[in-house]
């Protein structure tokens, strides 16, 4: 069930109506939300709800036991049960096929041809997200940072709460569970509405608009020259941001309408000037999760240079693998890890040379770093998008070593509307720049007089109809 469909509108209306009926009973409202969340998830595949129940059930019991266990070893064993259960399920559903392919490759390398059937396991939608939701709970309880929750319903609602269930933002128990303790007021305000609309416009107008071009080129990139590859790479650069942050915007807005707050997930990442800044602006809920539950427990930067570099690389490699079962994602994570390491040494060098303050104050330096960083991001999206190895290598070659062939006009791209695509990207970048300098358009629209906002809504409605490609593409992060 997608947020921008009629089915969801009906589902959401019924949910809100039932919550209104149960407005005097906080617990009943939570039950309504829990049932609604289960229905939302079961819309894809009813059977997989059992997986969430099992995962949540194990963590609920483990956390309850942790509360009454003082002995450190026993506590650690309980945590291990939770980790093995959750990562085991994730590994089974997400990485079995990948493991099989790699084993086959190794066997063939040694001349052995194993005779086993291909593994074909359906990936439960959102498993990477809700696994991280539920794990945050047991780990925080283990660290004694949060108390356990008595109510399984509350815990199950935290794990399955439908707005962020299938593509984030990744929720922390410490942030969400306290919100379930007291009655919440629904808030259908203009800010939430324009936030939802912002997400919808990002997805429908921009992401789906540029996806046509990127998909057509990356289907077989070996047909194309550098200009086309560049344009396709920029399309994907825009698409993945608008697709993913659009989903997050809609999820946050829907949760807010229901009276709940989710953590922000994006903060205009394409204005980041260095790798750490990028990860403070891109998929914030994942990067902070990895920082708090992986990088810091590994030792962070507290045990010398070598271990810091190791921890950075490990965190980013695992972060890459979290996205999907492919060496491409590992490479993507590795590139980002290497960038973090390089930046660390660059930062140290500029401090040693007493250049840091002067560089930080320089606008030219800021613009240059943003451009360099964004060029790097563009390059790293190529292995993320083009999974076929020979296609990826060709794409990287054409991207990095420009062939001076600027043909766009007559390269047989008519049906992909290359010029309209360039125009769309330009409009997106202007709005993105405006948002960075003056704040989001949605925030401005939430403050302007009602007639102006109404006029803007009529225009947005018309544009949504006119420019939304008839063949809409699914959200990219659903596959993770």
């Amino acid at each position, binding site marked *: 069930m997608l947020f921008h469909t009629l089915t969801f509108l009906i589902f959401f209306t019924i949910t*809100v109506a039932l919550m*209104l009926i149960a*407005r005097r009973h906080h617990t009943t409202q939570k039950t309504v939300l829990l049932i609604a969340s289960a229905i939302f998830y079961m819309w894809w595949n009813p059977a997989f709800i059992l997986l969430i129940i099992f995962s949540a059930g194990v963590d609920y019991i483990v956390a309850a036991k942790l509360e009454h266990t003082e002995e450190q070893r026993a506590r650690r064993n309980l945590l291990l049960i939770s980790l093995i259960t959750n990562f085991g399920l994730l590994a089974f559903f997400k990485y079995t096929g990948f493991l099989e392919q790699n084993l086959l490759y190794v066997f063939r390398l040694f001349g052995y041809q194993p005779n086993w059937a291909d593994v074909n396991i359906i990936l439960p939608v959102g498993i990477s997200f809700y696994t991280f939701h539920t794990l945050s709970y047991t780990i925080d309880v283990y660290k004694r940072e949060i108390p356990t929750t008595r109510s399984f319903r509350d815990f199950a609602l935290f794990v399955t709460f439908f707005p962020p269930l299938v593509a984030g933002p990744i929720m922390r128990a410490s942030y969400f569970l306290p919100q379930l303790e007291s009655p919440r*007021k*629904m*808030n*259908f*305000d*203009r800010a*939430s*509405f*324009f936030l939802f*609309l912002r997400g919808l416009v990002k997805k429908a107008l921009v992401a789906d*608009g540029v996806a046509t071009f990127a998909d057509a080129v990356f289907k077989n990139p070996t*047909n194309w020259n550098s200009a086309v590859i560049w344009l396709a790479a920029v399309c994907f650069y825009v698409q993945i941001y608008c697709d993913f942050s659009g989903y997050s915007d809609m999820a946050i807005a829907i949760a807010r309408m229901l009276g709940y707050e989710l953590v922000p997930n994006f903060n205009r990442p394409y204005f980041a000037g260095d790798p750490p800044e990028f990860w403070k602006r891109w998929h914030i809920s994942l990067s902070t999760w990895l920082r708090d539950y992986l990088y810091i427990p590994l030792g962070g930067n507290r045990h010398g240079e070598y271990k810091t570099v190791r921890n950075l690389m490990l965190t980013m490699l695992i972060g890459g693998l979290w996205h999907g079962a492919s060496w491409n994602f590992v490479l993507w994570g590795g590139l980002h890890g290497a960038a973090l390491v390089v930046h660390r040494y660059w930062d140290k060098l500029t401090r040693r040379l007493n250049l840091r303050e002067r560089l930080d104050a320089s606008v030219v330096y800021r613009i240059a770093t943003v451009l360099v960083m964004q060029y790097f991001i563009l390059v790293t999206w190529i292995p993320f998008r083009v999974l076929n190895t020979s296609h990826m290598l060709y794409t990287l070659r054409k991207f990095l070593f420009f062939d001076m062939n600027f*043909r766009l*006009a*007559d*390269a*047989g791209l*008519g*049906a992909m*509307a*290359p*010029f*309209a*695509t*360039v*125009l769309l990207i330009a409009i997106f970048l202007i709005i993105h720049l405006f948002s960075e300098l003056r704040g989001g358009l949605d925030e401005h629209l939430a403050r302007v007089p*009602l007639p102006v*906002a*109404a*006029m803007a*809504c*009529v*225009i*947005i*409605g*018309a*544009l*949504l*109809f*006119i*420019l*939304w*490609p*008839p063949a809409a593409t699914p959200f990219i992060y659903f596959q993770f």
Partner: protein
Amino acid sequence: MSSSRSLLGPDSPRMFVLAACVVAGALIAISATPRLLLHMPTELSRTTELVRALRHAPPQLSVVVTGDSVTMNGVNAKLLGQELTPKVEAWNVGSPGQQLAETLFIADMLPRNVHTLVVGLLPEGLSEPSVTLPEDRYLFYRISGYEPSREALEIARKLPTPTLFELMSEPQWKATLSGRGLIRISADLSIRSKLRRDLDLERARTDLYFPAAYRQRISEAALSHAVSMLYRHKTSFEPSAQRLQFLVELREMLAKRGQRLVIVVLPQHPRAIALISANYYGQFTHYAERLRNEYHFDVIDFHDRLSEPDFIDQIHPGGIGSERLTKMISASLPAQRAAS
């Protein structure tokens, strides 16, 4: 109102007003889209011109040639009319990306004084499995004023694939929903026409004789790239039973109106012929013979009759090529006429 305010938040009435405005914007766009499409440059704008022209055709119009951009660039209808004996008025109503299904609409709109409809097809036009049409293409015929006749609907209804009939029977607003993507294409075309001086898009939109848009020969490198993109090796030619059925029905409809159907197999680029395979074309030639002898179609096969210099790119004949092709068609048409 006050109770809903307290239940859904104090700002909720304003939010619902704004949501209603978004819906209103979409509804305005739905109702305005057909008119907008008629006035914006799109790849299908020519369809509007053609429907208008056929509805107000002069009484001396006798021969109509139709097909996709290969026909548009390959047949000079003015020259064709002059080459025929006696001289007649002939039009080229080909349009970019025109599909076989559209021949039905063209045939349905033909004035009664037209005695010959020439359909230009490439060999694959007789092998693609079904006779269907994207909704946006049909939308243009609808918004331009075309109403299918009972006979045309009947032909579509008899096809094993129901898509065309469903399309022709559906209400216009439904077709409008899928035609909306064309506005984006239109923006692209507007920019493209400013950037590509080698294209005569105005001529391609309005000319009823020789609507050739392409004027400059593409480079050798571009040609090699385009050939590799467009053509693949094929071992055999598989004729389409559905297309054959469609053409038989179309010929019957035209015959009842005193008009005849002539199929011209258009020339293919020699590099395409070399790439696809001799066996494919051997089987195709055999099929063209069957169409002539077994099904009594007027088929003129020119698939291998132009040489490389006759083409301007990987698919479209250039000036000399189109002149040669037009003369070959005119030389074949009288014989066809006598035979019929």
